[in-house]
């Protein structure tokens, strides 16, 4: 379970990137975080893998709490979370194989086990044929699939995807979404931030709407205001 209670984030002298957020995300859910650029989606996600800590309030992720966590424990937490980004965050001059192997190397697994597991993961995202290729040579859609394989490597209890389709075309976007859906069906929680309303409009998942660092109340989800947000979220 992931819980935000009265969480506020100020970046330096810029206040209110998030304002008094209260939110609960249950294990096994697929959650969509929807809102225009600058609404605080990334900030909220960064709190989950504790890339930043709240200025006030508490974030609880599984058995870890942002209130008193050591740098060492933050590393342990991150090794139990899968993260996917708009810009993929692959190591460009390493092979596809080495990129997916990285979390397993960090964990200190044995070579034999790593080889078997990475092949399985690459097969899962349909990238096994490119395992020797350097990450920089891949198409954007392929890069994101490799990134998802890497995020899945440690069999995390939650996958955090921050606008994973932001740089992809329609087809690659659908491909990535269906991959995340498959991961969800296998029991992993998925939290995906997006401003691509078109992509997710027919999905049945829980939607959390954000604006100006705040979560909009559920009763306004289908209000005219929300229509405006949807327009903002999907400028095309």
């Amino acid at each position, binding site marked *: 379970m992931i819980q935000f209670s009265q969480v506020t984030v100020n970046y330096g002298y810029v206040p209110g990137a998030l304002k008094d957020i209260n939110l609960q995300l249950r294990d096994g859910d697929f959650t969509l975080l929807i809102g225009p650029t600058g609404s605080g989606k990334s900030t909220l996600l960064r709190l989950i893998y504790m890339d930043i800590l709240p200025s006030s309030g508490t974030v609880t992720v599984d058995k870890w709490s942002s209130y008193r966590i050591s740098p060492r424990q933050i590393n342990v937490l991150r*090794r139990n979370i899968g993260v996917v980004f708009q810009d993929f965050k692959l190591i460009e001059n390493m092979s596809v194989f080495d990129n997916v192997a*990285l979390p397993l190397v*960090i964990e200190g697994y044995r070579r034999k086990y790593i080889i078997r597991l990475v092949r399985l993961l690459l097969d899962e995202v349909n990238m096994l044929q490119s395992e020797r290729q350097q990450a920089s040579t891949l198409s954007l859609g392929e890069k994101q699939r490799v990134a998802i394989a890497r995020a899945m490597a440690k069999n995390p209890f939650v996958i955090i995807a921050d606008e994973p389709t932001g740089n992809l075309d329609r087809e690659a976007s659908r491909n990535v979404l269906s991959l995340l859906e498959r991961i969800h069906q296998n029991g992993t929680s998925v939290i995906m931030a997006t401003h691509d309303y078109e992509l997710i409009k027919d999905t049945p998942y829980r939607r959390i709407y954000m604006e100006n660092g705040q979560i909009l109340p559920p009763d306004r989800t289908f209000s005219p205001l929300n229509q405006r947000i949807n327009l903002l979220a999907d400028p095309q």
Partner: protein
Amino acid sequence: MKFFFILRQTFNNLWRERTPVVATVLTICIALTILIALFEVSWTLYSQLSDLKSNLVIEVYLDPALSEKQAGTIQKQLEQYNTIERIRFISKETAADIFREEFGENITDILDENPLPISFEIRLLPEYNHPGYMSLFKKQVESISGVDEVHYRHAVIEKLEQLTEAIMVSGIFVLIILVFAMNLLIRNTIKLSVYAKRRQIEIMKILGAGNMLIRMPFILEGAFEGLIGGILSATGLIVMHKFIASSFSLVTFSLHTYKLIWVYTLSLGILIGLLTSAGSVGKFVNKIFSKK
């Protein structure tokens, strides 16, 4: 696997920054070579100096007109000095014997009578075997009535002592500059490598990598530079030794010396590289991420 990952990263860093790495390795090599050579030269000079000193005698020549009895009272006077290890009395006859041994002729054959004065050969206690005390001693003894002259080979010793000192001082001066340069260059390659890998470091942090895994490749990079610098330095030193040994047949260097050179250069090189990089990598990594 972690180990291989670290090694691969290390060599990747070294290859990526090869130009500054070569400059750093050469500086380490030169510094180690000078350090070891300086140590050897000053050690050789020092041991020769102490050899010379321990064989050094002060010769006290008495007035030729003095009788052996009068000489005896002067010896008593000299024996009052507790800085003296021993005194050897050299009679006129002994002096003539020495003369014969050295020049192969009887002095009494050349001259009618033995003109050689009675003298003493004085050896000072080792802790007083330095020019400062010796010149004081000379002055004091020369003031004793009946003493004609006091001699010792101070010139050679003073020269040698000055030489040793000059070599040490200039060597240490050069060495300080080189150690400074070495430190600067090692830190520079680590800084460049960390900067080149900043995105990878950021990604590894997001994946939960600990400080050890993130920093180790850079620490080993410094250690490896030290290792290569050490190997080059040892090779250079041994070649120089072979050259010196073949041009002066007097000096020979044993296998033992070569082993010691390897041990010193390698362990010093690795230690310097390791400590310098380990001491700076954390700062460079933090600097990159402090803006976040």
